[in-house]
């Protein structure tokens, strides 16, 4: 079986102008949504309490809300997830309940209202911890970006480092844009997914860069655009099959992973799809834009020797 039958190279670089416009539009839209709507930061980052409770029978959310309102917690959000028996309660940080006592108080009140209620999960994060987790997340993002740029600069050349990281940050911004637009909850696990995408989708760029380097050595007469087109075309089949396989696993996570892994898998899905797009139509045009040359990768001092060959 062979899905990919290209008679000749696909002229990706000729589409460079349009793809750059498209990428810029998506990028700016993402930034716009992040700026206007903001991320729906989870309790990990904002601080507060999340409780997951389960009733013995299908329950009416209004009743749960009433109990909470009776305790003066009108700012609580109550919602179903999974089945109608499972309820998720979010409570902002309260001054008078320090040390995570809030969940116990709420649980007691709910138990008085309905005996069948069962505590499944509680997460309490103090405001200072939330701030730290956010800072650490940003630090990790910075560190990964720098690490990748440095690695690519050493292994290839600085232009490849820049192109690679721009393409990958493009993916990250798009994921964040999606999360902002749909107001999906952005939690610590989603952050892990975003960082994993950063590492994973740079693979894609690396594979193409490797081919570009090889082609610079092999196709000595071809223009830069042609070299890149050929590299992308030649790796196309690997790109799609690899990402398809990864996506299969991610879909399996979406289906079977439960609510904790749901947004994690969702972030990965966006990351994988845009990862393919960006390494082909973002990273490579940037390479051209930065003026990548054969001499950048094929060392000049070797040249006379090679030319001496028949």
């Amino acid at each position, binding site marked *: 079986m062979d899905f990919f039958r290209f008679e000749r190279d696909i002229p990706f670089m000729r589409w460079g102008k349009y793809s750059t416009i498209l990428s810029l539009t998506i990028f700016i839209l993402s930034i716009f949504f992040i700026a206007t709507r903001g991320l729906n930061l989870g309790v990990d980052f904002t601080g507060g309490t999340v409780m997951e409770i389960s009733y013995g029978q299908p329950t009416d959310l209004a009743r749960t809300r009433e109990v909470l309102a009776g305790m003066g917690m009108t700012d609580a959000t109550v919602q179903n997830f999974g089945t109608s028996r499972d309820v998720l309660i979010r409570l902002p940080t309260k001054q008078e309940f320090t*040390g*995570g006592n809030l969940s116990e108080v709420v649980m007691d009140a709910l138990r008085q209202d309905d005996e069948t209620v069962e505590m499944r999960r509680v997460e309490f994060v103090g405001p200072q911890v939330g701030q730290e987790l956010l800072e650490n997340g940003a630090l990790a993002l910075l560190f990964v970006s720098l690490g990748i740029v440095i690695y690519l600069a050493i292994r290839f050349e600085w232009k490849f480092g820049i192109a690679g990281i721009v393409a990958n940050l493009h993916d990250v911004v798009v994921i964040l844009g999606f999360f902002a637009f749909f107001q999906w909850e952005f939690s610590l696990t989603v952050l*892990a997914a975003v960082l994993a995408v950063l590492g994973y989708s740079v693979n894609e760029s690396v594979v193409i860069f490797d081919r570009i380097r090889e082609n610079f050595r092999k196709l000595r007469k071809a223009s830069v655009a042609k070299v890149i087109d050929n590299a992308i075309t030649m790796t196309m089949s690997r790109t799609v099959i690899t990402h398809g396989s990864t996506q*299969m696993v991610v879909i*399996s996570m979406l289906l079977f*992973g*439960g609510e904790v892994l749901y947004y994690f898998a969702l972030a990965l899905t966006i990351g994988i799809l845009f990862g393919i797009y960006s390494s082909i139509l973002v990273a490579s045009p940037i390479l051209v834009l930065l003026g990548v040359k054969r001499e950048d990768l094929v060392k000049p001092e070797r040249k006379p020797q090679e030319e001496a060959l028949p």
Partner: protein
Amino acid sequence: MNRYPLWKYLIIAVSLLFGLLYTLPNFFGESPAIQISPLRASAQADAVLLQQIEQTLARHHLPFSGTLLEASGIKIRFADTDTQIKARDVLESEIGNDFIVALNLLPNSPEWMNRIGALPMYLGLDLRGGVHFMLQVDMDGALLKSLDRYSSDLRSTLREQRIPSAGIDRDGDQIVIKFRNTQTRDRAIAELSKTFVDLDLRTIDTADDFHLQVAIKPDVHKRMQTAALQQNITTLRNRVNELGVAEPIIQQAGTDRVIVQLPGVQDTAKAKDILGRTATLEIRMVDDESDIEAALRGQPPFGTELFTERGGGPLLVKKQVLLTGDRITDAQPGFDQDSQPAVHVTLDSNGARIFKQLTRQNVGKRMAILLVEKHLTEVVTAPVIREEIGGGRVQISGRMSSTEARDVALLLRAGALAAPMEIIEERTVGPSLGAENISRGFNSTLYGFLAVALFIAIYYMAFGAISVTALSVNLLLLIGLLSILQATLTLPGMAAIALTVGMAIDANVLINERIRDEIRNGISPQAAIHAGYERALGTILDSNITTLIAGIALFAFGSGPVKGFAVVLCLGILTSVFSATMVSRGMVNLLYGNRKLSRVPIGSVWKPKRSKR
């Protein structure tokens, strides 16, 4: 060309064997058990106790399936959770005074496996249920406390040496002593620098006053903080022991935080109450001479504080702390002479000496026993000292119920905290959700793996089957490695295992696509296989190293669930590089290396009509 030397096959075989051996324990499951360990140094978990336990269980008709006598304690295995809980209750009432009786899970893997360290993966709290707390130590509070202690020491030293001062005040994180002239200040500096080596003394002159600024030296301050944290950790450990938890984790996090993990704890309210309480005991003198009226108006006389006695009226207490809770060696609930609930406290020799001295010097005066609980200080009782009390046995009684007496005793026995602490993060997972999370993670991995395996096998035929085998080996090695390292497996960790499956296939795809490329170029089958593997290697390394960079950053900056994810991701990268290059190559060499191939069994390869681009 496609042949491996024997040693390479041996490496593959040995790593496979190890992977298999250490992965196996995960499939045996766990059975409910009870863990019994001594609560006090005087009690011993030995064969005699084991016999006693066996007899007790037999008497109550509670069948058990095995016992294990270890240095740390006794473990008893049960067939089901019902019996386990019943047995716990029985044993708790029988030997609970001297031993911790905790619920636990024991791996069902055979004994010889345990002996060589082949244990199942260590499940995180989100998979087995339990509580995770992060506590913040209030170092500022600890500093203030020691500054208060220092200022009272300074005052008494100056008084003893008859050096007049115009007042000692605490200002922020330092103490300021005012003097009338420089001569007295110089004398004071000479005297104080002799006795207080831990303090930095600095002179500051204002318009009409001569100040001496006293601060704790930075290195001493640091040492105090470390000591405070260490003491708090020890205290927490003692308190957790009182709770009866098997395999608790109590560890330092950063310079001023402690992480407490209690697997399997279901009564979180109780756990929080015991851990969160920061009771320390202080003994100070009551100031009956000063004007309490002024204090009630909001101006307590210098060096005193206003408190309300439990069930009594307000009273003035001197700020100077004479004795603190860390001198307590034991505290038991009981009753006093009037059959009122009381706590009997035993002090260590140093504490006993101090207590004897202070009671001798203050006969006829009132002494206040204060219970300090996070910003809330309460005078439990303020008895009049009738005579010198020696021997270090103190009885605290003062309008408390017997439940309160028991709680106070527990808190005092469990030791005092050097500095107040506060829970700043909590993650609790109920046991049912834990079990559900395991199946979620498992199913995600299983179905993801099956889908990928099926697709790859169809697409690349024989070479696909080899890739799938390499992928299984990867999974085997990864789980084996996680088991050997006893790394904590969390739900995000399981997600990382699934993701590793999806990402590890990349290396195989790269290789297979390369081989197909070479075939398209018209090279002979053996040469194509060889070139495919060789050429793909650089790319595989490059792309995996970038992912590894991300993994390491995640590990360095991540916390909790993210760390678990990062560990698995990093290990998965290592195993996948190994399995994709060494193992799959080894299999190909073994299967096809020694014979003539007319074509490479890698599925039908389409060739472009024009031979050259």
